[in-house]
């Protein structure tokens, strides 16, 4: 492999695994990170899994399009084998199905497109490394294959009081949600950002947000990013008819959404994702350290956003104002 100079900076250097079928990409990544981390490389998903079986790593960076196993397939397996590992997808082509799979099955921390900015990638990897370091203990050492993240959550933490907020102009989604949850828990419906803000303020038990990707002409990425900073335990599921890969990437990177499902919604799928989201929320609420795993890419400062969106409706501004007030 590559000669790497190990510089002891205190505790043992964290490990980074890079997976890509393109040799020169691996070479570039290695060159970039060798001074900070213990960089391993693999040319295929299979090779990566073999290496992980020998020794776990903190962060995995993988390409999507590889012969044999795709990046998302690899991540799916890593989720099961080593749930503490932070997963970053680095890909040359963003096609929508792969992107959606990346968030839903792969639960990626970031979705990075080639070509990338070295500084951004360093920041991303640094955040991922920090999260991995801080959360490895509570997600357990490398669990046995098949054990999912759910097992780490003590049963006592499932809380029937957690409520769901549905934000969509079309009331059908809220109705469906109520139907699916069978009255087990409260479901609030909002048709605008104003209403949503009011409900959030009024009901701190809201733990899951089911929302459209756009409400009116505002796209919710900034809103979700802001909400995350205020309510980091809030788990977001986006249900949308829109087929925009770029939007989904921003929802992943900045919004840190939990799941993305397409409309028309498949009720069974929605039910399973809702229960997953509820569990995730409880987990996040119970263990604040886990929030590090869902730190979003930095959005432009709120003030700038307000100026940028000054032509959009009052809803966003009011929400931001409220969010800002909550912050204080």
């Amino acid at each position, binding site marked *: 492999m590559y000669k790497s*100079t190990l510089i002891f900076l205190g505790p043992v250097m964290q490990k980074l695994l890079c997976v890509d079928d393109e040799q*020169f990409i691996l070479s570039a990544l290695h060159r970039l990170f060798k001074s900070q981390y213990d960089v391993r490389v693999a040319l295929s998903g299979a090779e990566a899994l073999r290496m992980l079986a020998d020794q776990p790593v903190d962060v995995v960076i993988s390409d999507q399009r590889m*012969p*044999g196993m795709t990046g998302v397939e690899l991540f799916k397996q890593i989720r099961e084998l080593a749930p503490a590992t932070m997963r970053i997808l680095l890909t040359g082509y963003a096609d929508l199905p792969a992107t959606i799979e990346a968030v839903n099955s792969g639960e990626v921390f970031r979705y990075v497109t080639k*070509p990338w900015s*070295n500084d951004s990638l360093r920041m991303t990897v640094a955040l991922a490394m920090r999260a991995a370091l801080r959360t490895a203990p509570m997600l357990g050492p490398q669990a046995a294959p098949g054990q999912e993240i759910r097992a780490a959550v003590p049963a006592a933490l499932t809380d029937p009081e957690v409520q769901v907020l549905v934000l969509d102009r079309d009331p059908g989604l809220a109705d469906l949600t109520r139907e699916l949850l069978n009255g087990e828990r409260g479901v609030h419906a909002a048709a605008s950002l104003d209403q949503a803000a009011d409900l959030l303020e009024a009901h701190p038990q809201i733990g899951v947000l089911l929302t459209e990707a756009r409400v009116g002409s505002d796209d919710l990425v900034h809103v979700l990013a802001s909400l995350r900073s205020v309510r980091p335990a809030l788990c977001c599921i986006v249900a949308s008819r829109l087929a925009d890969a770029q939007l989904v990437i921003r929802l992943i990177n900045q919004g840190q959404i939990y799941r993305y499902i397409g409309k028309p919604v498949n009720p069974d799928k929605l039910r399973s994702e809702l229960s997953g989201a509820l569990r995730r929320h409880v987990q996040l609420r119970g263990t604040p350290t886990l929030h590090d795993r869902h730190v979003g890419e930095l959005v432009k400062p709120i003030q700038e956003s307000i100026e940028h969106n000054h032509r959009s409706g009052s809803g966003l501004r009011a929400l931001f104002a409220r969010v800002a007030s909550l912050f204080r």
Partner: protein
Amino acid sequence: MTRFENAQPRPARIWLPWLLALIILAVGGAGTFMAWRYFHQTEQQGLRTALAEHTSASQNRANAFLALTGDSVNALSGMLNAGLDPQSEVFRRYVQQVLRRQPELMAVGFVSLPATPPVVTPAVSDESAEVDQEHAQEPPPPPVTASPAEPALTLLLVNEQGPGTAMGDGARWRGIDLGELQPLKNALARSQLTSTVEYSGLVEGQWTQLTPVGEPGALRGHLLAFLAPQVLLQNAVVGQPQDGLRRQLVDPTGSSGGPRLLYEEAHGQPLGGDAAQLSTQTDISALGQRWTLQLAALQPFVQARSTALPQYALIGGGVLTAILAVFVFMISARSARVQQLVNRRTAELSEAYQRLRDSEMMAMQSEKMSSLGQMVAGVAHEINTPLGFISSNVQLLRELLGRLRPLMDNQYKLLSAVPHWTRLAPEQKQLWFKAALQQGSALKSVREEGLSDDLESLTGESLSGLERLTDLVLTLKNFSRLDRAMIDEVDLNTCIEDTLKISHNVIKQKADVVKDLQPLPKIRCNPSQINQVLLNLITNAAHAIDRFGTLEILSRVEAQEIRISVRDNGRGMDPGVLSRIFEPFFTTKGQGEGTGLGLAISQKIVEEHGGQLEVQSEPGVGSRFTIRLPLNR
């Protein structure tokens, strides 16, 4: 199929059947009418001819009877001329025979003359205007008038039958001074001179004929005959009871001045209406007078001579015309309907053909776009990967250079002090050593980091990446032939390589590529189309493989053909799918995943190049598509 583009519908002409039927009816009607009229007229002609025959027959009979009468009288006068004494019994018997035979002779008599011939005096002669002058003075001697002894009717035998009875008693006649009857007198006088029958006319309302007896100049008398011509004529014109005719004998100068109906007989009912015109009128001259005979056809006459032919003609013609009209109507109506239907169908077909052409174009366009889209997806990744590491490397380069610059600056500072070493103060030298040690350790760590190796490798890799990008852009240009001629002499192996490069990203995830390309001669073709076909076959092969497999590409020259085959060990196709695989819009992919046109278009392209696209497949084993192109075109 281009017929449909310019299909001009022939006009249906709905009005034609009606027109033809009307024409047939008109013509048939006219023909029937004419046939009827012909027969009718022929019949009428026949009737008239028959009528004329009857008329002339009557006329002939009348003439015959007249002649007979004349002959009888001449016979009698001949007897008298022969010396028979009119007073003799023999003569009387002859006369009575004649009278019996000829009812029109009312009476026969003899007018005798005195023995002495009358003296013709000048006074009688008008011509002797010369008067002897000598004798003018003396009173002329009294003219010795030819006052013979008055003729006397010495014999009169009356016909006891028929109108002879009108004669009444002959005594009346005996007493008549025949000399008093001027016409008779004149006639007598003339006949004495000429011995011809001079007189025939009415005397006392009776027709009279005087026939001289004797030689001219030696007349003995006149045979006197009283005739009733109407009797003669009546007998002449009498008809048969069955002949169905009405006969009228008219005396145009009757006693009252107007036409007098003398005789009428009718056998049958008169005809009605305009058939009453079927009659003839003819003149019969007898005894110096004209009589009019009118013959009119009555029902029996007409019925006996009429056939049903005109009616048959009428009915037959009418029926035939009607049948013909209906027949022609039906045929032309059907033909018009058919034409209408054809026109409608043609219009529908034209429309459908146009829609089909449009949708075919749209589908081909969308297939092109979708295959283009597929290509772009793969190509985008192919481009972004080299860009990724090149970009990262250059960013790193800048950082590393940023680190090197201060080192180089320091190096310069340190070394630039060396020429002035001797002039340095010891504490300066001390500082210099310290700086030099620091520089040394900085350089050491740079060395230990392997910075120069890094610089070497990152520039080398970046340049290699740039080469790759250049090649990719060139391949794209080659593949699409954007800046080259559409038709060219091309080595197809180049097409294969180009297409493999373009689709590298799509294939690498699904299959290992095995190439077995033998040298190929250049052939004349449209390389961008061939590339399209190859791309289609390669992507199909990749899709057919479920997890990971092998894609084999062969190129050969065999039997005056270039053969390129693309083989995969994917799912394969069962015979049902295999038989339809080149069908337009047929696809085994889900909705929205494929247009189903790729292979149809590929086949069309290969066929346009004069070649063939063949397929072999076995389910579970794989498929092989072979392009065969002839060497000489």
